């Protein structure tokens, strides 16, 4: 019954199409990342000799006219999943598809695979499991391979080819999809000119040969005609990356093997350029299924050469109708279709007009021309006065319409309604203004214009203003530089330059205050302060030195990424160097952790407990480094996974334990001793008690919690980051701790927001020092699977986020510690200790400053992106950067909420404890 229905569908379709399908079976071979240049050459030059030699069979097919090759222009983003969608649905997706590249969901739009399924095709898929996620349940047989283990170049392809011989001998399938990932992996590892590239291309050539010979045999036995279509989803840059819109990346291949051989010029066969979306209508028309609804492509004319004139025109007509329907959806008022039906008259030439005017009119007119010509041709044909000339004119008219409509629709695919955009930008601007306004208001409240009327410190005020305006200037310089594509590509230089300049300015200031104090060292007390000034100077110098080393760790960027840097040098030097670097960083991180925990003044005993909980995951991380990181891809072994999972659990539990437990357990100096001289339980005493709890207890426990956040985060990074990145993680920690020391010794000479912004900038500069760039190619995909036994997109997404935003998050988490070490404007008057006021003084700046700075960047960058939407590099440079900006925003919000939650929770716990103790005393 069901089968009957399917046959009916096929029958009805063929009836409707008036054309029998040209082929019975289709082999769709996808070679991931193969640039068309490898096979077809570039700009009238044949492909480079090396490649030509390793693809003998394909080249012979092309030379003999058995195969047709095309440069198929892929739309950015040139990553696999959106490209597959474009091939099967003919629609151009949005850039946001990149974000879902690793989290593929079923494709629900009208597409070829579903159409084939509907007419009862049996489909087999071997290769990249993205297909299985896009089309769950549609394949009769499948063997998916994961595209994540980028370092594997052999096994991925073997897993596809091992079934090939068997499948080719079977007759039960109609569509065989082969998706080879190896070539893309070779590119990712070694670039276009990798030593493995030749053998990989040769392997692909042999697969093509095998399929072609087998299909020929089938055809000779009259078992059906098979079309082999070899496509690549995208190309690759010289370094083997992809994602952008350069010629090298968008130059993908379409190779049709099995059409009627056409003796034609080799140049002609190999140098026509089409669009990747043209694959969908071509296949649909060849196999007699409806063209996918959202298709914007036009069919490849050569594929239909074997049909009669009548049928070819019918094909053109079908494609035109489909595009016209799509146009009518886009332009609601478009009604030329009905109009043209009436135009049919004996005097067909009347309908042919020069087409100009607005886009809509022009498309309408082109369509009308084609239809009129077609009708007249048909009527002529009936009257047996067939002329080749008129046929060509009709084809030309259809081509014109198809070309124009396809182009217009492709441009339309990225169009977004202006109203929504303006509302969005307005909302962003509003929130940004709210942040800045709040900050300004707080600043006024905390520093109530106390220096304005002191005329003799006027120049000091001027100096202060220089430092603080520079903090703001950094963000504005950054925003201005974002308008230039190369500044976006090389953002790491800007961050390092601006941040180092900021710390040099601070160094100058620290030296100034040092000297100002030595001048008046009559008072012996000052000597202690002088020492703290030395600490300030040395901590800034430490920040500068480590910052410079981190800058040299990864060259980063795009244009100079090939220059030598420390990480490349380490990788070349060998594994034992990398390992020793890792161990040194581990030892230093552990000892820094223990040292900074014990530098807490009060109550070493409670700190010891926390220290112990720190040592255990530390030791496990060490064990993991020593045992497992050598064997890079056996790392997914069971033992390693369980170790890592234990570490995750321990880190999670002890962080939560610190968060919930420390405020309750942190001992507070007993108020009894303090209240000896107050005598009675006066209100004075109660206020004193409250203040003791709020200020001392709060500060101590916040210090310990902040310490735990920072160090557990660093341990996690030691585990997750690439082995060469362990030293930068250590340096980041050193910078943050040096920043803490600087803040804790600070006098009054810098405002709150400058300190916070300084720490935040350190985090952002460190983001690039860990090897991140503004292209999507540097996201560490391999690290996202450490310790995950089953494939889970959510978990690996979280890990990827943790790895990528290691540094900004560390800076944000350090704000907790900052609240503890910075002498906030502690309530001078013990009477008015109010928890709200206290929180406002401590929490507001560390939270609002990152939010405000980030929102300025977000707003500015959104506007830049809108202005640049027609820029040549919008897909390759600006859009990925925007994804990063959005992810940074998410990171800032997560970090800030952690900070504020911690502070609020802790202060409430202490308020409760102080009340409890007060009640005890009153009894």
């Amino acid at each position, binding site marked *: 019954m069901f089968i009957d229905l399917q046959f009916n569908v096929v029958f009805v379709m063929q009836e409707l199409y008036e054309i029998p399908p040209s082929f019975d079976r289709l082999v769709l071979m996808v070679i991931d990342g193969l640039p068309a240049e490898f096979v077809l050459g570039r700009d009238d030059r044949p492909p480079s000799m090396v490649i030509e030699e390793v693809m003998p069979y394909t080249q012979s097919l092309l030379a003999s006219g058995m195969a047709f090759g095309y440069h198929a222009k892929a739309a950015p983003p040139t990553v696999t999943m959106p490209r597959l969608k474009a091939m099967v649905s003919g629609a151009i997706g949005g850039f946001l598809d990149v974000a879902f590249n690793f989290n593929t969901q079923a494709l629900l739009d009208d597409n070829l695979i579903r159409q084939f399924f509907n007419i009862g095709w049996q489909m087999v898929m071997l290769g990249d499991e993205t297909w299985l996620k896009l089309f769950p349940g549609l394949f009769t047989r499948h063997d998916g391979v994961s595209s994540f283990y980028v370092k594997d170049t052999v096994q991925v392809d073997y897993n596809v080819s091992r079934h090939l011989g068997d499948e080719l001998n079977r007759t039960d399938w109609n569509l065989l999809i082969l998706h080879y990932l190896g070539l893309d992996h070779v590119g990712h590892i070694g670039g276009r000119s990798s030593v493995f590239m030749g053998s990989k291309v040769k392997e692909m050539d042999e697969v093509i040969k095998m399929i072609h010979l087998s299909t020929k045999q089938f055809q000779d036995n009259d078992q059906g005609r098979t079309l082999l279509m070899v496509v690549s989803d995208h190309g690759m840059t010289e370094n083997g990356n992809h994602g952008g819109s350069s010629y090298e990346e968008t130059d993908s291949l379409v190779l049709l093997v099995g059409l009627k051989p056409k003796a034609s010029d080799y140049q002609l066969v190999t140098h026509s350029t089409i669009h990747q979306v043209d694959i969908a209508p071509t296949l649909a028309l060849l196999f007699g299924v409806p063209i996918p609804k959202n298709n914007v492509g036009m069919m490849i004319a050569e594929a239909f050469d074997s049909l009669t004139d009548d049928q070819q025109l019918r094909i053109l007509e079908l494609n035109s109708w489909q595009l016209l329907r799509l146009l009518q959806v886009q332009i609601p008022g478009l009604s030329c279709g009905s109009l043209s039906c009436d135009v049919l008259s004996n005097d067909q030439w009347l309908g042919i007009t020069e087409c100009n005017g607005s886009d809509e009119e022009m498309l309408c007119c082109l369509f009308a021309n084609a239809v009129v010509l077609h009708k007249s041709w048909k009527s002529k044909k009936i009257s047996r006065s067939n002329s080749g000339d008129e046929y060509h004119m009709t084809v030309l008219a259809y081509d014109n319409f198809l070309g124009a409509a396809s182009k217009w629709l492709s441009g339309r695919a990225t169009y977004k309604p202006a109203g929504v955009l303006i509302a969005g930008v307005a909302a962003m601007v509003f929130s940004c203004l709210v942040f800045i306004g709040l900050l300004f208001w707080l600043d006024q409240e905390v520093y109530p214009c106390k220096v304005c009327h002191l005329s003799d410190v006027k120049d000091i005020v001027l100096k202060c203003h220089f430092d603080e305006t520079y903090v703001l200037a950094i963000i504005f310089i950054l925003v201005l530089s974002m308008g230039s594509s190369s500044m976006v590509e090389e953002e790491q230089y800007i961050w*390092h330059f601006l941040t180092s*300049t900021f710390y040099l300015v601070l160094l100058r200031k620290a030296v100034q205050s040092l000297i100002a104090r030595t001048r008046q060292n009559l008072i012996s007390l000052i000597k202690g302060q002088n020492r703290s000034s030395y600490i300030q100077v040395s901590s800034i110098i430490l920040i500068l030195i480590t910052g410079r080393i981190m800058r040299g760790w990864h060259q980063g960027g795009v244009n100079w990424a090939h220059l030598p840097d420390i990480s490349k040098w380490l990788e070349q030097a060998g594994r034992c160097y990398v390992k020793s670097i890792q161990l040194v960083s581990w030892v230093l991180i552990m000892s820094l952790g223990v040292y900074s925990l014990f530098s807490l003044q009060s109550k070493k005993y409670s700190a010891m407990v926390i220290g112990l909980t720190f040592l255990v995951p530390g030791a496990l991380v060490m064990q993991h480094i020593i045992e497992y990181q050598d064997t890079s891809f056996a790392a997914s072994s069971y033992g390693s996974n369980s170790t890592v999972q234990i570490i995750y659990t321990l880190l999670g539990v002890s962080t939560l334990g610190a968060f919930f437990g420390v405020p309750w357990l942190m001992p507070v100096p007993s108020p009894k001793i303090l209240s000896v001289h107050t005598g009675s339980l006066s209100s004075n005493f109660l206020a004193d008690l409250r203040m003791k709890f709020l200020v001392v207890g709060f500060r101590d426990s916040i210090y310990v919690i902040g310490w735990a956040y920072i160090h557990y985060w660093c341990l996690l990074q030691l585990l997750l980051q690439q082995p060469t990145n362990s030293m930068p993680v250590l340096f980041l920690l050193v910078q943050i701790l040096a920043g803490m020391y600087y803040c804790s010794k600070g006098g009054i000479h810098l405002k709150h927001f400058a300190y916070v912004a300084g720490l935040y900038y350190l985090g952002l500069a460190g983001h690039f020092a860990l090897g991140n760039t503004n292209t999507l190619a540097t996201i560490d995909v391999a690290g996202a699977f450490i310790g995950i036994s089953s494939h889970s997109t959510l978990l690996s997404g979280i890990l990827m986020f943790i790895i990528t935003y290691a540094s900004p998050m560390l800076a944000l988490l350090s704000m907790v510690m900052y609240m503890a070490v910075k002498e906030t404007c502690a309530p001078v008057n013990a009477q008015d200790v109010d928890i709200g006021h206290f929180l406002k003084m401590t929490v507001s700046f560390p939270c609002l400053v990152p939010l405000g700075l980030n929102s300025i960047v977000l707003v500015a960058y959104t506007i830049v992106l809108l202005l640049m939407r027609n820029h040549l590099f919008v897909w390759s440079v600006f859009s990925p950067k925007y994804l990063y900006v959005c992810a940074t925003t998410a990171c800032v919000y997560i970090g800030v909420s952690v900070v504020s939650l911690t502070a609020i929770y802790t202060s409430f716990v202490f308020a409760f404890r102080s009340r409890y103790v007060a009640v005890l005393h009153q009894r």
Partner: protein
Amino acid sequence: MVEKKKKQQAVNGNDAVPSPSSSSSPWQAFLVHLLSGLGLASALGVAHKFYSANLVSDPLHTLRLIWVIEAPIVVLIYSMFRSNPKQCSYWKAVGRGILGLPVGAVVNALGAIALGAPVGPKYFLKTVNWSLLMSLFTVVPAASVFGSSWTDWIRLFGHTKPSGSNDYMICLPAHGAVIGAWFGAWPMPLDWDRPWQEWPICVSYGAIAGYLIGMVASFGLVLLRGERQHIKGE
């Protein structure tokens, strides 16, 4: 970038009243700046004429030529304005200036590297020559004039509070050169593929431009100040 020079004064600091520096007339200031500027111009001219080189084509040798020609001019001229001519002979001031040259170069080089100047054997000599030139712009005049009088150093570079025409003559061109160099570094990451984007070419251009602007400003201020004093005197 201005600020890194302060490290060296951090060690010492005696509480003395700022010594009244001997004032120089606007004409002297003009002459000093004119000679320094001419030194720069002649160095570039010599490089162009005899070696047919300029900063872009051969930065290493051009920078070396510039500082070799400029060094005697700066040291000899500024030594005439030494702050306490009675206790300090002219040649002692010259010696201080010569000593200040490598010290200042080290400070400048460290500052530049902290801000991201490339390190490595390929860049070593370029950085050395560039920092010697920067040292001539920034540290050497002050070394010749003030020697080891730290309070003066702090006044000029720590607080940027020049008082008196000598201070202007030292302070403004030095700050100009440093700020100019800072701005000169901005085109370096752009992908224009121009030869002058290499370290240290555009930074040197920036520094020279800033130095020239600083000299003009210093002459203007000295002139202004002289007139004001003149009026006061009357």
